[in-house]
């Protein structure tokens, strides 16, 4: 119940910045249009590249734009506040609380993601529907599975961002790690280019890394490319979510001991 309250408040906190949301939706739409034409040119030259057709490709672009902020590909989200609190030492107060730190920030981040999905996700997608030929989910089941997959994507992304923020305990400044992590997330999530286009071992590697859970897996579920193996796709995401959340707890434990040693 407590975590639901945290999530709803995070949702409302983000909804305060209306102009920022509108500006962001506009920017997502502009990039959506640019990439749509780029992909259309690619699939005109090679109509079956990566096992997609041109409608799949354009749909992929707009879903990617919808997920960009929802999954917080570049970093950001509630973990940014955590990094700041670690730097200032305020995190000591968070650690006093009778609520787990990971659960607290995860709940807030899910609230944030819900807000970004309804505004910056839905808005540009509707524009994409108007301007281009876009594929809708094959069935209600596929649509629901997509939503579940997005939730799992946010959890995996949250865990990675939490680990990045926790690096502040040791480095005192997570800016460098954050940029690196964002760069890898953009590329290996399939945001720059669908992972199905990656050749040979690079493709195999990219599909196995946790970042593919951010964009490639939810998009493929929407497009119906996981028809027979829906559970395997969701299981892949859930597995990475569990492993990385576990890592968060371990790292937090190690960091807490360090804080105590420092008398912090």
């Amino acid at each position, binding site marked *: 119940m407590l975590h639901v309250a945290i999530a709803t408040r995070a949702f409302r906190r983000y909804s305060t910045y209306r*102009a920022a949301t509108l500006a962001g939706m506009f920017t997502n739409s502009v990039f959506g249009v640019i990439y749509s034409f780029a992909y259309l040119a690619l699939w005109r030259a*090679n109509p079956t590249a990566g096992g997609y057709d041109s409608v799949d490709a354009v749909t992929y672009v707009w879903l990617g734009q919808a997920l960009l902020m929802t999954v917080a590909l570049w970093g950001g989200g509630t973990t940014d506040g955590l990094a700041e609190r670690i730097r200032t030492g305020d995190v000591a107060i968070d650690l006093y609380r009778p609520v787990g730190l990971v659960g607290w920030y995860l709940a807030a981040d899910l609230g944030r993601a819900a807000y970004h999905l309804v505004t910056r996700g839905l808005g540009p997608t509707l524009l994409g529907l108007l301007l281009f030929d876009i594929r809708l989910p094959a069935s209600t089941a596929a649509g629901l599975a997509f939503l579940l997959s997005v939730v799992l994507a946010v959890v995996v992304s949250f865990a990675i961002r939490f680990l990045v923020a926790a690096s502040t305990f040791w480095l005192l400044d997570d800016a*460098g790690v954050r*940029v690196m992590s964002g*760069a890898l997330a953009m590329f290996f999530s399939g945001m720059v280019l669908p992972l199905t286009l990656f050749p040979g071992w690079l493709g195999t590697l990219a599909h196995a890394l946790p970042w593919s859970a951010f964009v490639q897996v939810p998009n493929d579920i929407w497009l119906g490319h996981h028809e027979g193996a829906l559970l395997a796709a969701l299981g892949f995401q859930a597995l990475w979510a569990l492993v990385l959340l576990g890592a968060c707890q371990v790292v937090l434990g190690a960091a807490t001991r360090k804080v105590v040693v420092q008398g912090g």
Partner: protein
Amino acid sequence: MAEAVVHAQRYVDIAWLWIRAAWQYPASFVMLAVGNGLINLLDFLGLWIMFSHLDRLGGFALHEVAFLYGASSLGIGVADTLIGSVERIGTYIRTGRLDQMLTKPVPLLVQVCADQFTLRRLGRITQAAVVFAWACTYVDWSPLRVVAAVSMVASGAVVFFGLFVAFSCVQFWTHDASEFANAFTYGGATVAQYPLSIFPREVLVGLTFVIPIAFVNWYPSLFILGREDPYAMPAWFQWSSPLAAAATMLVALSVWRLGVRRYTSTGS
């Protein structure tokens, strides 16, 4: 003219201050530079993977697209390094720092642009320069083409200068809409990474007459690469990049003055 030299001197002073400050955390500095280079490296790797599935994109081969990509990335990289801080103007307004700046004997624009100057985008400029240099080895050079290339890179940077300043001014009216500018600055750089032949004619017209992104690299590159203009625009456009750059800068400075005149402190 003498005044401009003094302003440039002030800019360098402030920028040098920030470089020395950033260098106090060498590990973070290096990681930021490498990380920024990595973003662009992976970006270009994406383009390269794209070309493993086709021979020509919009009628252009990989080395030609790399030429466009390099020129566009160089332009925005240089502009972003020199004046990218102007994006943060909304934060300065919100926190009241702009009031402090207004009391100092250095032009506001110089202060805002030099504030928190960082060399971390050197990674991006280096990567762009390497791609551009590689693409240049495929060009059939003549003295005239060299002139066109130098003018293209310089004008490209100035066009992005103008776009950064002009669209950041939106924040004088709405403080938290900084992302609006990204659609034109980073969005513009992304458009320019592709041959404009992949877009409908309306887009090209917009990128020529409304937001002069086509002058950053497209028109001069057509001349340098010796390509026929697929849209048959006037040939003198291919030499008009400096003109477009000057016009963008002029508009940007007027918008800036308008914004500053309209500025009233938040009082916090």
